[in-house]
Protein backbone atom coordinates (compact mmCIF):
# COMPACT_ATOMS: atom_id res chain seq x y z
CA UNK A 1 0.00 0.00 0.00
CA UNK A 2 2.78 2.38 0.90
CA UNK A 3 4.19 2.27 -2.65
CA UNK A 4 1.12 4.03 -3.94
CA UNK A 5 1.83 7.13 -1.91
CA UNK A 6 4.59 8.69 -4.00
CA UNK A 7 2.23 8.37 -6.95
CA UNK A 8 -0.57 10.03 -5.08
CA UNK A 9 1.47 13.13 -4.26
CA UNK A 10 1.88 14.55 -7.78
CA UNK A 11 -1.83 13.99 -8.23
CA UNK A 12 -2.49 16.25 -5.30
CA UNK A 13 -0.15 18.95 -6.55
CA UNK A 14 -2.22 19.32 -9.63
CA UNK A 15 0.03 17.89 -12.35
CA UNK A 16 -1.70 15.27 -14.43
CA UNK A 17 0.28 12.04 -14.35
CA UNK A 18 -3.04 10.21 -14.44
CA UNK A 19 -3.24 11.05 -18.13
CA UNK A 20 0.12 9.41 -18.71
CA UNK A 21 -0.87 6.40 -16.63
CA UNK A 22 -1.52 4.09 -19.60
CA UNK A 23 2.19 4.25 -20.50
CA UNK A 24 3.00 2.54 -17.16
CA UNK A 25 0.44 -0.18 -17.56
CA UNK A 26 2.62 -2.72 -19.43
CA UNK A 27 4.86 -5.29 -17.72
CA UNK A 28 7.81 -3.75 -15.87
CA UNK A 29 11.17 -3.94 -17.61
CA UNK A 30 13.87 -2.77 -15.25
CA UNK A 31 17.65 -3.08 -15.25
CA UNK A 32 18.54 -5.95 -12.95
CA UNK A 33 20.33 -4.98 -9.77
CA UNK A 34 24.02 -5.94 -10.05
CA UNK A 35 25.92 -7.69 -7.28
CA UNK A 36 29.58 -7.14 -8.21
CA UNK A 37 30.95 -8.33 -4.86
CA UNK A 38 29.18 -11.66 -5.12
CA UNK A 39 31.01 -12.34 -8.35
CA UNK A 40 34.36 -11.28 -6.93
CA UNK A 41 34.00 -13.46 -3.86
CA UNK A 42 32.77 -16.44 -5.88
CA UNK A 43 35.71 -16.20 -8.26
CA UNK A 44 38.14 -15.94 -5.35
CA UNK A 45 36.64 -19.03 -3.72
CA UNK A 46 36.76 -21.00 -6.96
CA UNK A 47 40.42 -20.10 -7.52
CA UNK A 48 41.25 -21.07 -3.97
CA UNK A 49 39.38 -24.38 -4.30
CA UNK A 50 41.05 -25.27 -7.58
CA UNK A 51 44.48 -24.53 -6.14
CA UNK A 52 43.69 -26.66 -3.11
CA UNK A 53 42.53 -29.58 -5.25
CA UNK A 54 45.62 -29.41 -7.50
CA UNK A 55 47.81 -29.29 -4.45
CA UNK A 56 45.98 -32.13 -2.72
CA UNK A 57 46.16 -34.36 -5.77
CA UNK A 58 49.95 -34.06 -5.77
CA UNK A 59 50.58 -34.27 -2.04
CA UNK A 60 52.09 -37.65 -1.16
CA UNK A 61 50.68 -37.72 2.37
CA UNK A 62 47.17 -38.25 0.99
CA UNK A 63 48.47 -41.28 -0.85
CA UNK A 64 45.68 -41.36 -3.46
CA UNK A 65 46.79 -44.69 -4.94
CA UNK A 66 46.08 -46.27 -1.52
CA UNK A 67 42.74 -44.54 -1.35
CA UNK A 68 41.85 -46.05 -4.72
CA UNK A 69 43.07 -49.44 -3.61
CA UNK A 70 41.10 -49.53 -0.36
CA UNK A 71 37.91 -47.67 -1.24
CA UNK A 72 36.34 -50.82 -2.73
CA UNK A 73 38.30 -53.24 -0.59
CA UNK A 74 35.98 -56.05 0.45
CA UNK A 75 36.56 -55.39 4.17
CA UNK A 76 35.82 -51.69 3.75
CA UNK A 77 32.65 -52.08 1.69
CA UNK A 78 31.36 -54.70 4.12
CA UNK A 79 32.07 -52.34 7.00
CA UNK A 80 30.28 -49.55 5.14
CA UNK A 81 27.26 -51.80 4.79
CA UNK A 82 27.42 -52.60 8.52
CA UNK A 83 27.49 -48.91 9.34
CA UNK A 84 24.49 -48.33 7.11
CA UNK A 85 22.62 -51.17 8.80
CA UNK A 86 23.51 -49.88 12.25
CA UNK A 87 22.17 -46.48 11.25
CA UNK A 88 18.95 -47.71 9.68
CA UNK A 89 18.03 -50.26 12.35
CA UNK A 90 18.74 -47.95 15.25
CA UNK A 91 16.93 -45.01 13.63
CA UNK A 92 13.85 -47.07 12.83
CA UNK A 93 13.67 -48.24 16.43
CA UNK A 94 14.48 -44.75 17.73
CA UNK A 95 11.76 -43.05 15.67
CA UNK A 96 9.15 -45.61 16.69
CA UNK A 97 10.11 -45.43 20.34
CA UNK A 98 10.42 -41.65 20.09
CA UNK A 99 6.86 -41.30 18.81
CA UNK A 100 5.61 -43.57 21.59
CA UNK A 101 7.53 -41.59 24.23
CA UNK A 102 6.33 -38.25 22.86
CA UNK A 103 2.72 -39.41 22.86
CA UNK A 104 3.17 -40.75 26.38
CA UNK A 105 4.51 -37.39 27.52
CA UNK A 106 1.53 -35.56 26.02
CA UNK A 107 -1.08 -38.12 27.01
CA UNK A 108 -3.59 -37.33 29.76
CA UNK A 109 -2.35 -40.41 31.66
CA UNK A 110 -0.01 -39.36 34.52
CA UNK A 111 1.63 -42.80 34.70
CA UNK A 112 2.65 -42.66 31.03
CA UNK A 113 3.84 -39.08 31.49
CA UNK A 114 6.15 -39.93 34.37
CA UNK A 115 7.57 -43.03 32.71
CA UNK A 116 8.41 -41.05 29.58
CA UNK A 117 9.91 -38.24 31.60
CA UNK A 118 12.11 -40.68 33.54
CA UNK A 119 13.27 -42.36 30.33
CA UNK A 120 14.33 -39.02 28.86
CA UNK A 121 16.05 -38.02 32.07
CA UNK A 122 18.21 -41.15 32.07
CA UNK A 123 19.02 -41.47 28.38
CA UNK A 124 19.62 -37.82 27.65
CA UNK A 125 21.44 -37.28 30.89
CA UNK A 126 24.30 -39.72 30.23
CA UNK A 127 26.79 -39.81 27.32
CA UNK A 128 26.02 -42.24 24.54
CA UNK A 129 29.55 -43.61 24.79
CA UNK A 130 28.98 -44.55 28.44
CA UNK A 131 25.66 -46.13 27.52
CA UNK A 132 27.32 -48.21 24.80
CA UNK A 133 29.95 -49.45 27.25
CA UNK A 134 27.14 -50.42 29.62
CA UNK A 135 25.34 -52.38 26.89
CA UNK A 136 28.62 -54.14 26.17
CA UNK A 137 28.81 -55.16 29.82
CA UNK A 138 25.21 -56.39 29.86
CA UNK A 139 26.32 -60.01 29.64
CA UNK A 140 28.49 -59.57 32.71
CA UNK A 141 25.83 -57.77 34.74
CA UNK A 142 22.97 -60.08 33.71
CA UNK A 143 24.40 -63.46 32.76
CA UNK A 144 21.04 -64.89 31.82
CA UNK A 145 17.73 -63.42 30.73
CA UNK A 146 14.67 -65.05 32.26
CA UNK A 147 11.14 -64.61 31.05
CA UNK A 148 8.33 -65.57 33.39
CA UNK A 149 6.61 -64.62 36.62
CA UNK A 150 8.92 -63.09 39.27
CA UNK A 151 10.07 -65.45 42.06
CA UNK A 152 8.85 -68.46 40.08
CA UNK A 153 10.60 -70.89 37.79
CA UNK A 154 11.11 -68.93 34.53
CA UNK A 155 9.37 -70.14 31.38
CA UNK A 156 12.33 -69.34 29.18
CA UNK A 157 15.88 -68.61 30.18
CA UNK A 158 18.84 -67.97 27.91
CA UNK A 159 22.42 -66.88 28.16
CA UNK A 160 22.83 -63.17 27.44
CA UNK A 161 25.95 -63.64 25.33
CA UNK A 162 24.21 -66.24 23.18
CA UNK A 163 21.05 -64.18 22.68
CA UNK A 164 22.56 -60.79 22.01
CA UNK A 165 25.62 -60.41 19.81
CA UNK A 166 27.62 -57.19 19.75
CA UNK A 167 25.82 -55.91 16.65
CA UNK A 168 22.45 -56.24 18.36
CA UNK A 169 23.80 -54.61 21.49
CA UNK A 170 25.18 -51.75 19.43
CA UNK A 171 21.80 -51.25 17.74
CA UNK A 172 20.00 -51.33 21.10
CA UNK A 173 22.47 -48.89 22.63
CA UNK A 174 22.27 -46.42 19.77
CA UNK A 175 18.48 -46.74 19.39
CA UNK A 176 17.58 -46.28 23.04
CA UNK A 177 19.80 -43.21 23.31
CA UNK A 178 18.48 -41.71 20.11
CA UNK A 179 14.87 -42.39 21.07
CA UNK A 180 15.19 -39.84 23.87
CA UNK A 181 16.18 -37.14 21.39
CA UNK A 182 13.59 -38.23 18.84
CA UNK A 183 10.92 -38.03 21.54
CA UNK A 184 11.63 -34.33 22.00
CA UNK A 185 11.62 -33.70 18.26
CA UNK A 186 8.32 -35.52 17.87
CA UNK A 187 6.85 -33.71 20.88
CA UNK A 188 7.76 -30.33 19.39
CA UNK A 189 6.10 -31.45 16.16
CA UNK A 190 2.92 -32.55 17.90
CA UNK A 191 2.73 -29.29 19.85
CA UNK A 192 3.09 -27.30 16.63
CA UNK A 193 -0.25 -28.64 15.39
CA UNK A 194 -3.10 -26.24 16.12
CA UNK A 195 -5.31 -27.15 19.08
CA UNK A 196 -8.36 -26.70 16.86
CA UNK A 197 -7.36 -29.79 14.89
CA UNK A 198 -7.56 -32.02 17.92
CA UNK A 199 -10.82 -30.35 18.87
CA UNK A 200 -12.39 -30.89 15.45
CA UNK A 201 -11.36 -34.54 15.42
CA UNK A 202 -12.66 -35.07 18.94
CA UNK A 203 -15.95 -33.40 18.04
CA UNK A 204 -16.31 -35.87 15.16
CA UNK A 205 -16.22 -38.68 17.71
CA UNK A 206 -12.66 -39.81 17.09
CA UNK A 207 -10.89 -41.28 20.10
CA UNK A 208 -7.72 -39.66 21.41
CA UNK A 209 -5.61 -42.33 19.74
CA UNK A 210 -7.40 -41.97 16.40
CA UNK A 211 -7.00 -38.20 16.63
CA UNK A 212 -3.27 -38.59 17.12
CA UNK A 213 -2.79 -41.14 14.37
CA UNK A 214 -5.05 -39.69 11.69
CA UNK A 215 -4.91 -35.95 12.33
CA UNK A 216 -2.12 -34.74 14.60
CA UNK A 217 0.82 -36.96 13.66
CA UNK A 218 0.48 -36.57 9.87
CA UNK A 219 0.48 -32.78 10.26
CA UNK A 220 3.37 -32.78 12.68
CA UNK A 221 5.49 -34.70 10.15
CA UNK A 222 6.32 -31.50 8.32
CA UNK A 223 7.88 -30.16 11.48
CA UNK A 224 9.42 -33.46 12.52
CA UNK A 225 11.15 -34.52 9.29
CA UNK A 226 13.84 -31.83 8.90
CA UNK A 227 15.38 -32.29 12.36
CA UNK A 228 14.97 -36.06 12.00
CA UNK A 229 17.04 -35.89 8.82
CA UNK A 230 19.69 -34.21 10.92
CA UNK A 231 19.46 -37.00 13.47
CA UNK A 232 19.87 -39.71 10.82
CA UNK A 233 22.99 -38.07 9.48
CA UNK A 234 24.26 -37.55 12.99
CA UNK A 235 23.52 -41.22 13.76
CA UNK A 236 25.50 -42.32 10.72
CA UNK A 237 28.51 -40.72 12.32
CA UNK A 238 27.70 -41.72 15.89
CA UNK A 239 27.96 -45.35 14.78
CA UNK A 240 31.72 -44.82 14.88
CA UNK A 241 31.38 -45.02 18.68
CA UNK A 242 30.13 -48.62 18.70
CA UNK A 243 33.70 -49.72 19.25
CA UNK A 244 32.76 -49.05 22.89
CA UNK A 245 30.46 -52.10 22.93
CA UNK A 246 32.89 -53.40 21.50
CA UNK A 247 31.68 -53.90 17.94
CA UNK A 248 34.53 -53.47 15.48
CA UNK A 249 33.04 -54.11 12.04
CA UNK A 250 31.71 -50.60 11.40
CA UNK A 251 33.26 -48.33 8.81
CA UNK A 252 35.41 -46.17 11.06
CA UNK A 253 36.74 -48.92 13.32
CA UNK A 254 37.47 -51.13 10.30
CA UNK A 255 39.43 -48.46 8.41
CA UNK A 256 41.32 -47.61 11.60
CA UNK A 257 42.20 -51.28 12.07
CA UNK A 258 43.46 -51.48 8.49
CA UNK A 259 45.60 -48.40 8.91
CA UNK A 260 47.05 -49.98 12.05
CA UNK A 261 48.36 -52.73 9.78
CA UNK A 262 49.58 -50.47 6.99
CA UNK A 263 50.95 -47.69 9.27
CA UNK A 264 49.31 -45.24 6.84
CA UNK A 265 46.26 -43.66 8.50
CA UNK A 266 45.58 -40.69 6.18
CA UNK A 267 44.35 -42.53 3.08
CA UNK A 268 42.14 -44.74 5.27
CA UNK A 269 40.60 -41.64 6.83
CA UNK A 270 39.86 -40.41 3.33
CA UNK A 271 38.32 -43.74 2.42
CA UNK A 272 36.03 -43.62 5.44
CA UNK A 273 35.12 -39.98 4.76
CA UNK A 274 34.19 -40.71 1.16
CA UNK A 275 31.84 -43.51 2.24
CA UNK A 276 30.25 -41.36 4.96
CA UNK A 277 29.75 -38.53 2.46
CA UNK A 278 28.18 -40.92 -0.05
CA UNK A 279 25.66 -42.18 2.48
CA UNK A 280 24.91 -38.68 3.75
CA UNK A 281 24.18 -37.54 0.21
CA UNK A 282 21.79 -40.42 -0.37
CA UNK A 283 20.02 -39.67 2.92
CA UNK A 284 19.64 -36.03 1.98
CA UNK A 285 17.92 -36.99 -1.27
CA UNK A 286 15.58 -39.26 0.68
CA UNK A 287 14.77 -36.45 3.08
CA UNK A 288 13.89 -34.16 0.18
CA UNK A 289 11.28 -36.59 -1.12
CA UNK A 290 9.84 -37.26 2.34
CA UNK A 291 9.44 -33.54 2.94
CA UNK A 292 7.61 -33.18 -0.34
CA UNK A 293 5.31 -36.04 0.55
CA UNK A 294 4.25 -34.52 3.86
CA UNK A 295 3.86 -31.00 2.47
CA UNK A 296 0.59 -32.29 0.98
CA UNK A 297 -2.15 -29.71 1.22
CA UNK A 298 0.15 -26.92 2.34
CA UNK A 299 3.23 -27.32 0.17
CA UNK A 300 3.97 -26.53 -3.43
CA UNK A 301 1.38 -28.77 -5.00
CA UNK A 302 0.72 -27.70 -8.58
CA UNK A 303 -2.73 -26.13 -8.83
CA UNK A 304 -5.16 -28.34 -10.67
CA UNK A 305 -6.61 -27.38 -14.00
CA UNK A 306 -9.11 -24.59 -13.80
CA UNK A 307 -8.17 -23.77 -10.24
CA UNK A 308 -7.76 -20.12 -9.46
CA UNK A 309 -4.23 -19.28 -8.48
CA UNK A 310 -3.94 -15.52 -8.27
CA UNK A 311 -4.54 -14.56 -4.65
CA UNK A 312 -3.30 -17.88 -3.29
CA UNK A 313 0.20 -17.95 -4.67
CA UNK A 314 1.58 -15.44 -2.23
CA UNK A 315 0.43 -17.35 0.80
CA UNK A 316 1.57 -20.65 -0.65
CA UNK A 317 5.09 -19.43 -1.26
CA UNK A 318 5.39 -18.32 2.32
CA UNK A 319 4.22 -21.69 3.49
CA UNK A 320 6.69 -23.50 1.29
CA UNK A 321 9.56 -21.38 2.58
CA UNK A 322 8.53 -22.23 6.09
CA UNK A 323 8.39 -25.96 5.40
CA UNK A 324 11.88 -26.17 4.01
CA UNK A 325 13.54 -23.63 6.21
CA UNK A 326 12.60 -22.77 9.75
CA UNK A 327 9.63 -24.82 10.76
CA UNK A 328 8.26 -22.69 13.53
CA UNK A 329 5.28 -21.43 11.53
CA UNK A 330 2.11 -22.64 13.18
CA UNK A 331 0.24 -24.95 10.86
CA UNK A 332 -3.05 -23.52 12.00
CA UNK A 333 -2.61 -20.36 10.02
CA UNK A 334 -2.63 -22.28 6.79
CA UNK A 335 -5.98 -23.72 7.67
CA UNK A 336 -7.64 -20.46 8.51
CA UNK A 337 -9.35 -18.13 6.15
CA UNK A 338 -6.52 -15.65 6.69
CA UNK A 339 -4.18 -17.85 4.71
CA UNK A 340 -5.70 -16.49 1.54
Amino acid at each position, binding site marked *: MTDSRPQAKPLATGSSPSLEAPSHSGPIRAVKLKHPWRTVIAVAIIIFAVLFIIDASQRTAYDWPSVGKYIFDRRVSEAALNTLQLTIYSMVIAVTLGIILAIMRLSPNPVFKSVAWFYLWVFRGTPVYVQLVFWGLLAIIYQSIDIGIPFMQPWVSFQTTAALNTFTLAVIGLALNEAAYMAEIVRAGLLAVDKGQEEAAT*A*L*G*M*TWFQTMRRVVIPQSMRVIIPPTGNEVISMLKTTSLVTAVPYSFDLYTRTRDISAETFNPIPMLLVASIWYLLFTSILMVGQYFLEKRFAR*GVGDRKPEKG*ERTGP*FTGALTTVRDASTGSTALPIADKNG*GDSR
Partner: protein
Amino acid sequence: MNDVSHAMPMVLAEGVSKSFGSNEVLKGISLSVAKGEVMCLVGPSGSGKSTFLRCINHLEVVNGGRLFVDGELVGYTQKGDTLFELHPKQAAAQRREIGMVFQKFNLFPHMTALENVIEAPLHVKKMPKAQAIARGKELLDRVGLTDRMGHYPAHLSGGQQQRVAIARALAMDPKLMLFDEPTSALDPELVGEVLDVMKGLAQSGMTMIVVTHEMGFAREVADSLVFMDGGVVVETGIPREIISNPQHARTQAFLSKVL
Protein backbone atom coordinates in the same frame (compact mmCIF):
# COMPACT_ATOMS: atom_id res chain seq x y z
CA MET B 1 -43.23 -26.05 16.62
CA ASN B 2 -45.99 -26.59 19.13
CA ASP B 3 -46.32 -30.23 18.29
CA VAL B 4 -42.66 -30.97 19.08
CA SER B 5 -42.35 -28.92 22.25
CA HIS B 6 -44.21 -31.53 24.32
CA ALA B 7 -41.83 -34.29 23.33
CA MET B 8 -38.46 -34.81 25.01
CA PRO B 9 -36.23 -31.82 24.20
CA MET B 10 -33.08 -32.38 22.17
CA VAL B 11 -31.05 -30.33 24.62
CA LEU B 12 -32.03 -29.71 28.20
CA ALA B 13 -29.80 -27.67 30.50
CA GLU B 14 -30.67 -27.50 34.18
CA GLY B 15 -28.56 -25.03 36.14
CA VAL B 16 -25.40 -25.85 34.21
CA SER B 17 -22.29 -24.26 35.70
CA LYS B 18 -18.69 -24.38 34.63
CA SER B 19 -15.55 -22.88 36.15
CA PHE B 20 -11.98 -22.67 34.95
CA GLY B 21 -10.13 -22.59 38.24
CA SER B 22 -11.68 -19.76 40.22
CA ASN B 23 -13.17 -18.18 37.10
CA GLU B 24 -16.85 -19.13 37.01
CA VAL B 25 -17.78 -18.87 33.35
CA LEU B 26 -21.26 -20.43 33.36
CA LYS B 27 -23.37 -19.61 36.40
CA GLY B 28 -26.38 -21.85 36.15
CA ILE B 29 -27.65 -21.99 32.59
CA SER B 30 -31.13 -23.43 32.17
CA LEU B 31 -32.68 -23.76 28.76
CA SER B 32 -34.30 -26.26 26.50
CA VAL B 33 -34.07 -26.83 22.75
CA ALA B 34 -36.83 -28.86 21.16
CA LYS B 35 -36.27 -31.33 18.35
CA GLY B 36 -36.18 -29.49 15.05
CA GLU B 37 -35.72 -26.15 16.77
CA VAL B 38 -33.14 -23.59 15.67
CA MET B 39 -31.82 -21.57 18.57
CA CYS B 40 -29.56 -18.59 18.22
CA LEU B 41 -27.27 -17.79 21.11
CA VAL B 42 -26.02 -14.23 21.32
CA GLY B 43 -24.11 -12.23 23.87
CA PRO B 44 -21.01 -10.13 24.38
CA SER B 45 -17.53 -11.57 24.12
CA GLY B 46 -16.56 -13.65 27.14
CA SER B 47 -20.16 -14.30 28.19
CA GLY B 48 -19.58 -18.06 27.94
CA LYS B 49 -21.33 -18.91 24.66
CA SER B 50 -18.51 -21.04 23.30
CA THR B 51 -18.02 -22.69 26.66
CA PHE B 52 -21.70 -23.66 26.78
CA LEU B 53 -21.55 -25.16 23.28
CA ARG B 54 -18.41 -27.06 24.21
CA CYS B 55 -20.14 -28.42 27.31
CA ILE B 56 -23.00 -29.76 25.20
CA ASN B 57 -20.44 -31.62 23.10
CA HIS B 58 -18.54 -32.70 26.22
CA LEU B 59 -15.40 -30.95 25.05
CA GLU B 60 -15.57 -29.34 28.51
CA VAL B 61 -16.71 -31.10 31.63
CA VAL B 62 -19.65 -29.52 33.43
CA ASN B 63 -19.01 -28.67 37.12
CA GLY B 64 -22.60 -28.34 38.24
CA GLY B 65 -26.18 -28.88 37.13
CA ARG B 66 -27.34 -31.39 34.59
CA LEU B 67 -27.09 -31.35 30.83
CA PHE B 68 -29.08 -33.76 28.69
CA VAL B 69 -28.88 -34.37 24.97
CA ASP B 70 -31.83 -36.32 23.62
CA GLY B 71 -32.63 -37.47 27.14
CA GLU B 72 -29.13 -38.75 27.77
CA LEU B 73 -26.98 -37.20 30.50
CA VAL B 74 -23.84 -35.66 28.96
CA GLY B 75 -20.50 -36.82 30.30
CA TYR B 76 -21.77 -39.03 33.13
CA THR B 77 -23.88 -42.04 33.82
CA GLN B 78 -26.18 -41.84 36.78
CA LYS B 79 -26.88 -44.84 38.99
CA GLY B 80 -29.17 -43.91 41.85
CA ASP B 81 -27.77 -40.67 43.24
CA THR B 82 -24.21 -41.35 42.15
CA LEU B 83 -22.64 -39.97 38.98
CA PHE B 84 -19.92 -41.93 37.24
CA GLU B 85 -17.53 -40.30 34.80
CA LEU B 86 -17.80 -41.70 31.30
CA HIS B 87 -14.97 -43.68 29.76
CA PRO B 88 -13.40 -41.63 26.91
CA LYS B 89 -14.79 -44.19 24.45
CA GLN B 90 -18.33 -43.61 25.71
CA ALA B 91 -17.84 -39.84 25.55
CA ALA B 92 -16.61 -40.22 21.95
CA ALA B 93 -19.75 -42.23 21.18
CA GLN B 94 -21.93 -39.41 22.55
CA ARG B 95 -20.11 -36.84 20.40
CA ARG B 96 -20.74 -38.79 17.21
CA GLU B 97 -24.38 -37.76 17.43
CA ILE B 98 -23.50 -34.07 17.67
CA GLY B 99 -21.98 -32.11 14.81
CA MET B 100 -19.88 -29.06 15.53
CA VAL B 101 -18.76 -26.23 13.26
CA PHE B 102 -16.02 -23.88 14.41
CA GLN B 103 -15.25 -20.24 13.83
CA LYS B 104 -11.87 -21.11 12.31
CA PHE B 105 -13.21 -24.08 10.28
CA ASN B 106 -10.54 -26.44 11.64
CA LEU B 107 -10.49 -28.49 8.46
CA PHE B 108 -7.73 -31.09 8.28
CA PRO B 109 -5.21 -29.33 6.01
CA HIS B 110 -3.49 -32.54 4.87
CA MET B 111 -6.71 -33.94 3.44
CA THR B 112 -8.75 -32.87 0.42
CA ALA B 113 -12.31 -31.60 0.86
CA LEU B 114 -13.71 -35.05 0.18
CA GLU B 115 -11.17 -36.76 2.44
CA ASN B 116 -12.14 -34.36 5.22
CA VAL B 117 -15.76 -35.32 4.84
CA ILE B 118 -15.28 -39.10 4.69
CA GLU B 119 -12.68 -39.25 7.47
CA ALA B 120 -15.07 -39.76 10.37
CA PRO B 121 -17.54 -42.04 8.57
CA LEU B 122 -14.62 -44.26 7.53
CA HIS B 123 -12.71 -44.40 10.78
CA VAL B 124 -15.33 -43.73 13.43
CA LYS B 125 -18.43 -45.29 11.90
CA LYS B 126 -16.37 -47.90 9.99
CA MET B 127 -18.50 -47.28 6.92
CA PRO B 128 -17.41 -49.10 3.74
CA LYS B 129 -15.25 -46.80 1.63
CA ALA B 130 -17.44 -46.75 -1.48
CA GLN B 131 -20.47 -45.86 0.59
CA ALA B 132 -18.58 -43.14 2.49
CA ILE B 133 -17.37 -41.58 -0.76
CA ALA B 134 -20.83 -41.64 -2.28
CA ARG B 135 -22.29 -40.00 0.81
CA GLY B 136 -19.41 -37.51 0.98
CA LYS B 137 -19.95 -36.45 -2.63
CA GLU B 138 -23.66 -36.09 -2.00
CA LEU B 139 -22.99 -33.82 0.99
CA LEU B 140 -20.41 -31.68 -0.81
CA ASP B 141 -22.91 -31.41 -3.62
CA ARG B 142 -25.51 -30.23 -1.14
CA VAL B 143 -23.25 -27.42 0.14
CA GLY B 144 -22.47 -26.41 -3.43
CA LEU B 145 -18.92 -27.72 -3.72
CA THR B 146 -19.32 -30.34 -6.42
CA ASP B 147 -16.30 -29.03 -8.30
CA ARG B 148 -14.05 -28.58 -5.27
CA MET B 149 -13.94 -32.11 -3.86
CA GLY B 150 -10.31 -32.79 -4.70
CA HIS B 151 -9.02 -29.49 -3.36
CA TYR B 152 -7.00 -29.05 -0.23
CA PRO B 153 -8.33 -26.53 2.31
CA ALA B 154 -5.46 -24.11 1.60
CA HIS B 155 -6.78 -23.86 -1.95
CA LEU B 156 -10.33 -23.02 -0.92
CA SER B 157 -11.80 -19.68 0.08
CA GLY B 158 -12.97 -19.18 3.67
CA GLY B 159 -16.60 -19.61 2.71
CA GLN B 160 -15.83 -22.81 0.83
CA GLN B 161 -13.81 -24.13 3.75
CA GLN B 162 -16.66 -23.48 6.15
CA ARG B 163 -19.09 -25.24 3.85
CA VAL B 164 -16.76 -28.25 3.73
CA ALA B 165 -16.68 -28.13 7.54
CA ILE B 166 -20.47 -28.23 7.63
CA ALA B 167 -20.52 -31.17 5.21
CA ARG B 168 -17.91 -32.92 7.37
CA ALA B 169 -20.09 -32.55 10.45
CA LEU B 170 -23.19 -33.71 8.57
CA ALA B 171 -21.38 -36.82 7.36
CA MET B 172 -21.81 -38.36 10.81
CA ASP B 173 -25.59 -37.97 10.53
CA PRO B 174 -25.85 -35.90 13.71
CA LYS B 175 -29.14 -35.27 15.43
CA LEU B 176 -27.89 -31.91 16.68
CA MET B 177 -25.64 -29.33 15.06
CA LEU B 178 -23.65 -26.75 17.04
CA PHE B 179 -22.29 -23.68 15.26
CA ASP B 180 -19.77 -21.46 17.06
CA GLU B 181 -19.66 -18.15 15.20
CA PRO B 182 -19.46 -19.91 11.83
CA THR B 183 -19.22 -16.70 9.82
CA SER B 184 -17.09 -14.51 12.09
CA ALA B 185 -13.81 -15.36 10.37
CA LEU B 186 -15.20 -14.75 6.88
CA ASP B 187 -14.90 -11.79 4.57
CA PRO B 188 -18.29 -10.03 4.41
CA GLU B 189 -19.00 -11.14 0.84
CA LEU B 190 -18.56 -14.81 1.82
CA VAL B 191 -20.91 -14.77 4.81
CA GLY B 192 -24.03 -15.20 2.69
CA GLU B 193 -23.04 -18.50 1.10
CA VAL B 194 -22.46 -20.11 4.50
CA LEU B 195 -25.68 -18.72 5.98
CA ASP B 196 -27.57 -20.05 2.96
CA VAL B 197 -26.29 -23.55 3.64
CA MET B 198 -27.30 -23.23 7.30
CA LYS B 199 -30.70 -21.97 6.30
CA GLY B 200 -31.22 -24.97 4.06
CA LEU B 201 -30.18 -27.20 6.93
CA ALA B 202 -32.66 -25.52 9.26
CA GLN B 203 -35.44 -25.97 6.72
CA SER B 204 -34.62 -29.67 6.46
CA GLY B 205 -35.55 -29.99 10.13
CA MET B 206 -32.13 -30.18 11.76
CA THR B 207 -31.93 -29.15 15.41
CA MET B 208 -29.37 -26.36 15.60
CA ILE B 209 -27.77 -24.14 18.20
CA VAL B 210 -26.04 -21.24 16.54
CA VAL B 211 -23.77 -18.75 18.27
CA THR B 212 -23.75 -15.76 15.95
CA HIS B 213 -23.78 -12.03 15.62
CA GLU B 214 -25.82 -12.25 12.41
CA MET B 215 -29.09 -10.77 13.66
CA GLY B 216 -30.64 -11.04 10.22
CA PHE B 217 -30.12 -14.79 10.29
CA ALA B 218 -31.50 -14.99 13.83
CA ARG B 219 -34.61 -13.07 12.91
CA GLU B 220 -35.24 -14.97 9.71
CA VAL B 221 -34.28 -18.53 10.53
CA ALA B 222 -34.22 -19.07 14.30
CA ASP B 223 -37.20 -20.26 16.33
CA SER B 224 -35.78 -18.87 19.53
CA LEU B 225 -33.16 -16.41 20.64
CA VAL B 226 -31.18 -16.59 23.85
CA PHE B 227 -29.22 -13.63 25.12
CA MET B 228 -26.38 -14.55 27.47
CA ASP B 229 -24.22 -12.22 29.52
CA GLY B 230 -21.75 -12.92 32.31
CA GLY B 231 -22.48 -16.64 32.31
CA VAL B 232 -26.24 -16.41 32.78
CA VAL B 233 -29.21 -16.38 30.42
CA VAL B 234 -30.55 -12.84 30.56
CA GLU B 235 -33.41 -13.09 28.13
CA THR B 236 -34.96 -15.70 25.92
CA GLY B 237 -37.85 -15.71 23.48
CA ILE B 238 -38.97 -15.29 19.87
CA PRO B 239 -36.15 -13.64 17.88
CA ARG B 240 -38.32 -11.00 16.24
CA GLU B 241 -39.77 -9.90 19.56
CA ILE B 242 -36.48 -9.72 21.42
CA ILE B 243 -34.76 -7.88 18.62
CA SER B 244 -37.51 -5.30 18.22
CA ASN B 245 -38.44 -5.03 21.87
CA PRO B 246 -35.73 -6.19 24.28
CA GLN B 247 -36.88 -6.28 27.91
CA HIS B 248 -33.54 -6.00 29.73
CA ALA B 249 -31.16 -3.08 29.68
CA ARG B 250 -28.22 -5.39 28.98
CA THR B 251 -29.98 -6.88 25.98
CA GLN B 252 -30.81 -3.42 24.72
CA ALA B 253 -27.21 -2.30 25.12
CA PHE B 254 -25.90 -5.36 23.30
CA LEU B 255 -28.40 -5.20 20.46
CA SER B 256 -27.72 -1.53 19.87
CA LYS B 257 -24.11 -2.49 19.18
CA VAL B 258 -24.67 -5.40 16.80
CA LEU B 259 -27.69 -4.18 14.87
